[in-house]
């Protein structure tokens, strides 16, 4: 069903607020809408909905007519008229009248208590339905998306092509079946009235709730399986994805901006970034300027530049968790105020760009330094009259091979990914203020309440700090474990490089004299002892510890400033007893400590990686400089 216009219209999305509210409540309570217009077209479906589908019954659901219920009218307060005491009638009559009013008020109050109970039950049932519908819809929308992708692939995007059921795999058939069941479950939740005409809870809603909440876990399991399969497919597709074709060459530096943006948009959800970029020309211009600057700085061709970008994005997209995190960050931030959204956009996109730039700089550095090395070496050898042309050529080939070996290593570490879990941290527990004696009226004077509050805040801050430090250590430890592999690679490379030297002597140096010459320089230039000594300067473990001290050394002082939280306390008095209230202090420290942890969880591993890569690249530069001395 490709065309379906206006399933229902819209007292919901426009029109008088009161009418809209009434319609929404009616939809909530009864599952039907009284104000419905529009038509349904059943033409052009790729899947045979006649067999699979619930389309017609959904239309029925949306179109179900009926008087809009005003469910809460049934629990309206009964009216009691109160009249004043009159001087013109006898006192006894006044009293009698007042007692009658009291009896009526009492009866009305009883009815209202009952109504309150009913309201509470309605609210509870509505909440249960809402939660269930939300959970169900999360799974349903995932499966629908998968189904939509599957149909698009099978039909090649054609609106008229239908799918032969025989061409579907078992998993695809299962996807159709489960999505259909989910649609049925969603439909039940929407259609089932939770209130009857009298405004009472229906038994039917209870039964439907029990039935659907019982099968929800199976749906969730299926959706997870589909997701896992999809993740694998996405990775494969990302790997296979061809680089964007270049239409022309030699375009200006700014001209590749759109290509780069297109790559950035791969991180987009629902076109939000793209829409924002289009709306915020300033940001786009800033982004393009940054790209232009980067290209100018790196001085690489457009083709090469794009190849680097695509490579970086392709390798990044293999890490779904990373990508999802980035997406989530953008979506969360876009949900906030526009100003914040803009700032985030700037930080997010330009931050990404910075990462891109960083990787490009390294990639370019490795290539240009090799080219430069060979060029210089060639010039140097040319002036050496003692060596024959053959020897010169062999020495150059040897140097090229060794330099390539170094470049390969740099490339590998640039794409490093460990098997370890990098992001497994949870949020801190909320410090329950009641556990710290807050809100208890037990102090005879305000000053005593203040003193007690100070002590309580001290305990609370210490407790949160302890948990914070535990989590922080966890971040450090996870990062350490994650990058231990990189450290090992680096240390292993030194041994490997020495071995490779001998191997390349055998491969590239055919002439005895060349072999003798190159081998004789090995001990001096690349002796194990000398290399290890050089490597010590770039010791990754030391760099890690330096980073730990730098990032975490003083950062917690401000977060755990007891005085700051003590000033957030409030005090109250009741019957000459005082209490302190530390809810604001608990909220404050909770938010601050959590924010700091989450930021560190994000930034610290990135910094470690960058620091490691810089150290490795610098060390490799030293190796190349040594090669130049051959």
């Amino acid at each position, binding site marked *: *069903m*490709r*065309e*379906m216009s206006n*399933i229902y219209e819209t007292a*919901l999305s426009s029109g008088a607020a009161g009418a809209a*509210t009434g*319609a*929404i*409540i*009616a*939809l*909530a*309570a009864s599952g039907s809408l009284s104000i419905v217009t529009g038509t349904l077209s059943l033409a052009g*479906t*790729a*899947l045979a909905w006649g067999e699979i589908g619930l389309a017609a019954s959904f239309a029925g659901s*949306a179109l179900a007519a009926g008087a809009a219920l005003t469910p*809460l009218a049934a629990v*309206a*307060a009964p009216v009691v008229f*109160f009249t*004043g*005491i009159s*001087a013109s009638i*006898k*006192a006894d009559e*006044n*009293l009698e009248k*007042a*007692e009658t*009013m*009291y009896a*009526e*008020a*009492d009866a009305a*109050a009883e009815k*209202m208590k009952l*109504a*309150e109970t009913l*309201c509470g039950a*309605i*609210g509870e049932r*509505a*909440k249960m*339905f*809402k939660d269930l*519908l939300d959970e169900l*819809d999360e799974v*349903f*929308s995932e499966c*629908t998306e998968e*189904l*939509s992708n599957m*149909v698009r692939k099978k039909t090649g995007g054609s609106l008229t092509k239908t799918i032969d059921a025989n061409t579907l795999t078992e998993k695809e058939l299962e996807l159709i079946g489960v999505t259909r069941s989910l*649609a049925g479950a*969603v*439909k039940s939740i*929407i259609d089932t009235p*939770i209130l009857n005409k009298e405004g009472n809870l229906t038994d039917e809603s209870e039964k439907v709730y029990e039935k659907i909440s019982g099968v929800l876990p199976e749906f969730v399991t299926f959706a997870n399986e589909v997701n896992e399969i999809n993740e694998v497919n996405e990775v494969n597709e990302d790997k296979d994805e061809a680089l964007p074709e270049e239409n022309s060459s030699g375009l200006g530096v700014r001209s590749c901006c759109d290509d780069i943006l297109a790559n950035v948009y791969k991180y987009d959800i629902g076109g939000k970034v793209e829409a924002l970029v289009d709306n915020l020309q300033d940001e786009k211009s800033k982004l393009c300027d940054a790209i232009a600057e980067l290209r100018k700085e790196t001085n690489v061709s457009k083709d090469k530049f794009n190849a680097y970008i695509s490579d970086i994005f392709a390798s990044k997209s293999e890490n779904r968790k990373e990508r999802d995190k980035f997406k989530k960050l953008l979506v969360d931030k876009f949900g906030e105020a526009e100003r914040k959204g803009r700032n985030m956009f700037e930080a997010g996109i330009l931050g990404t760009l910075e990462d891109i730039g960083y990787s490009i700089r390294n990639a370019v550095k490795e290539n240009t330094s090799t080219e430069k090395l060979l060029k210089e070496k060639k010039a140097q050898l040319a002036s050496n009259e003692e060596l024959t042309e053959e020897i010169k050529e062999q020495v150059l080939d040897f140097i090229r091979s060794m330099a390539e070996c170094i470049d390969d290593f740099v490339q590998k570490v640039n794409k490093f990914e460990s098997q370890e879990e990098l992001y497994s941290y949870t949020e801190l527990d909320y410090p329950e203020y009641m556990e710290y004696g807050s809100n208890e009226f037990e102090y005879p004077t305000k000053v005593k309440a203040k003193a007690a509050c100070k002590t309580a805040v001290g305990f609370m801050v210490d407790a949160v700090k302890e948990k914070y430090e535990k989590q922080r250590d966890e971040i450090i430890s996870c990062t350490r474990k994650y990058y231990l592999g990189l450290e090992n690679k680096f240390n292993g490379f030194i041994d490997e490089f020495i071995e490779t030297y001998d191997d390349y002597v055998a491969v590239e140096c055919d002439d005895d004299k060349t072999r003798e010459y190159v081998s004789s320089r090995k001990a001096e230039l690349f002796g194990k002892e000398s290399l290890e000594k050089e490597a010590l300067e770039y010791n990754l473990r030391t760099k890690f510890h330096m980073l730990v001290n730098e990032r975490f050394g003083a950062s917690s002082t401000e977060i755990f400033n007891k005085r700051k939280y003590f000033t957030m306390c409030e005090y109250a008095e009741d019957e000459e007893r005082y209490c302190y209230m530390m809810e604001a202090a608990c909220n404050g420290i909770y938010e601050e400590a959590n924010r700091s942890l989450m930021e560190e969880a994000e930034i610290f591993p990135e910094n470690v990686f960058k620091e490691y890569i810089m150290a490795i690249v610098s060390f490799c530069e030293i190796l190349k400089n040594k090669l130049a001395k051959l």
Partner: protein
Amino acid sequence: MPIPFLIAGLGVAAGALGVMGHSEAKETNEKAESVSRKAQKLYEDAKDSLEIVQKETQETLLDLGYSKKNVLEGSIKEFLQV
């Protein structure tokens, strides 16, 4: 001569009775006022409490209604368009 005294005496007695009767009526009226006030308070308190709960319930129903609306306009629409 004693008659006027008697009359006068009766007048005094009647006056005393009138004062007593008025005082009782005042008390009764005050009691009636008090009962009336209590009745109104009882009613108003119950009404206020009910109105709060009604408002909460209405908000919860609105939440559910909007969820249904979003699902109808979101995933169900998408599902029907597949």
